[in-house]
């Protein structure tokens, strides 16, 4: 029990409750609060162009999606090759409302927080359905179930007239307290919404891992027989993991639909699923910081690859669209190299830097 929460050093705990605190010292808490404040204030001072704001919004949406993938692949140890399809379920929930009610119906423009929630729940329902075989089987068969869900999803969207066969379905502008969000402030507005959700959900995931509902995921991943003996049901735990992942994916999908003001199949393909997986692996599976580092790293890599493809396109005349070739290549190599040489991802580098700085200038 440290009397002074400001200058506590070392790891000395007398209760488990103390050990599980998110912030060990008040300095940590202050630094985090300042960091959060900076995240929310900077757009007021630096007006970025829409192009860069879109990139940042995209990263934030990917973070929401990766929370989910990280839960299912990192914490629960199940491979999901269909995460983009779950994101797509969220987006197409919105598209369904848009098709049924019209793209600027009150439900879509005014009740958008509700729509985001509904999309999340739809994602959760589909996630639970795909995870259902886990009750009967063990091992990693579920990877194939998620892959087949991805294929079914793509087929349904591409072949059904109701979804315009994968063509873009428009979503109307949303209304905020002061009126409809215009073109100029669109990305700015959504930055705040998504940032808010990223923070809230981040705390949600962090807290989930302190409760039995989150810890059972890790228990089942590490040793399902022991988990069974401790009174958890490994099968239902896996289904639950998929449902959770589906929820985060659904929310990310709804945000994606609102941000782009439209839904099209090209954002939810198998390649996109692999990109999400790359984000989770590069960030660090089974760690919360990984959910932030992964999307940032992969989106930056994505931009670099696009620049490179453009640059190469100016030199090699008559070449095909290099970006379509270089992106899978780069993401594939990133996945393979990280798994081979740094399976714990960028989050591990972050951990090393933190422990180094904590003790600095001493070595140990």
């Amino acid at each position: 029990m440290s009397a002074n929460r400001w200058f506590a050093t070392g790891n000395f705990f007398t209760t488990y409750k103390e050990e599980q605190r998110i912030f060990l010292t008040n300095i940590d808490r202050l630094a985090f609060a300042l960091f959060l404040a900076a995240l929310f204030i900077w757009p007021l001072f630096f007006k970025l162009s829409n192009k860069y704001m879109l990139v940042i919004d995209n990263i934030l949406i990917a973070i929401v999606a990766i929370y989910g993938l990280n839960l299912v692949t990192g914490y629960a140890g199940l491979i999901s090759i269909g995460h983009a399809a779950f994101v797509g379920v969220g987006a197409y929930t919105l598209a369904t409302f848009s098709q049924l009610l019209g793209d600027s119906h009150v439900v879509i423009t005014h009740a958008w927080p509700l729509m985001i929630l509904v999309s999340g729940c739809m994602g959760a329902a589909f996630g639970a359905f795909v995870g259902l075989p886990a009750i009967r089987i063990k091992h990693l068969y579920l990877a194939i179930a998620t892959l087949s869900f991805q294929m079914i999803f793509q087929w349904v969207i591409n072949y059904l007239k109701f979804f315009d066969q994968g063509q873009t379905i428009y979503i109307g502008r949303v209304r905020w307290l002061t009126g409809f969000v215009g073109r100029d402030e669109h990305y700015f507005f959504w930055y705040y919404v998504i940032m808010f959700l990223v923070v809230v959900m981040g705390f949600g995931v962090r807290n989930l891992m302190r409760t039995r509902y989150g810890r059972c995921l890790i228990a089942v991943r590490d040793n399902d027989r022991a988990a069974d003996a401790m009174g958890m049901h490994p099968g239902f735990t896996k289904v639950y993991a998929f449902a959770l992942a589906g929820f985060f994916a659904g929310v990310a999908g709804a945000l994606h639909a609102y941000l782009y003001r439209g839904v099209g199949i090209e954002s939810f393909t198998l390649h996109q699923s692999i990109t999400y997986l790359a984000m989770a692996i590069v960030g660090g599976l089974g760690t919360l910081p990984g959910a932030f580092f992964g999307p940032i790293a992969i989106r930056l890599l994505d931009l670099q690859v696009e620049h490179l493809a453009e640059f190469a396109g100016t030199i090699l005349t008559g070449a095909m669209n290099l970006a379509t070739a270089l992106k899978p290549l780069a993401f594939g190599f990133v996945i393979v190299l990280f798994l081979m040489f740094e399976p714990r991802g960028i989050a591990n580098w972050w951990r090393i830097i933190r422990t180094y700085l904590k003790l600095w200038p001493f070595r140990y």
Partner: protein
Amino acid sequence: MSYFFQLVVSGIVVGSIYALSALGFVLIYKSSRVLNIAHGQIIAAGAFITYALTVWAGISIYISFLLSVVITFFLAMSVERIFLRRLIGEPIISVIMVTIGLMSIIDGLVYLTPFGTENFSFPAFLPKTPITFGGVSISWTQLVGVIITTILIASFSWFFKRSTIGVSMRAVSDDQLASMSVGISVPKVFGLAWATAGLSAAAAGSIIGNITGLNFDTLHAFGITVFPVVILGGLDSIIGAVVAGIIMGLIQQFAAGYLDGHWGLYGTADVLPYIILLVILLFKPHGLFGIHEIERV
């Protein structure tokens, strides 16, 4: 009625090629418990190598078929050697994710070549008039494809049943520790399993490429259909792969023949295998011939 038999014939043709390609997948799973997600891409790569050798290098198609099979044999072996050998002992989940990465890499490499965007078809080297028998016709390409596939599957099953290497492969799939203790090199067997899988994948890819033409999306879809086939047959059963391959071929042909165009449906052959997969996983997760692992706590 002849329409029905026509569908049966083409179903068996496609199904036998599914069987051949599923064989390689099952082999890798049996020996190392790894789901090779990149298997579809290896199939496509095999087809493209055959085409490149035949048309661009101008080699006779028979020789280039053999060459492509040999090249893919060594290619798959080196993939195992470079990427997967150092992951032996790591959790299986990371090995499977490496194969997902490989899938992406091969996709990227194919998109770099003209095969990624354009359509090609093999030059005709067999008589063009199909053989007709009681209203049911089968083209020479299909017939030769089925014959080659049957020969390959038969020789594979002989290989596993009788040859020393085949027996050691089965031993490794049964118990790695025990097989190590009798002097089998487990990493070598893994390498060989990948190489054999690459071989059968390249053969299957070349044959299907001859029948349907070379289009990356089509070959890709064909490759991914291997997953429903192996799940239906049972992941660790070679007989299961063969039977399920033919069943899946028949289902696809019947779906395309009878369901498409009715009730506003079309393209059902592309989606039905995956729906079957999900249903099978729910109700009979070990497939038709898979081994039930009974495990109670």
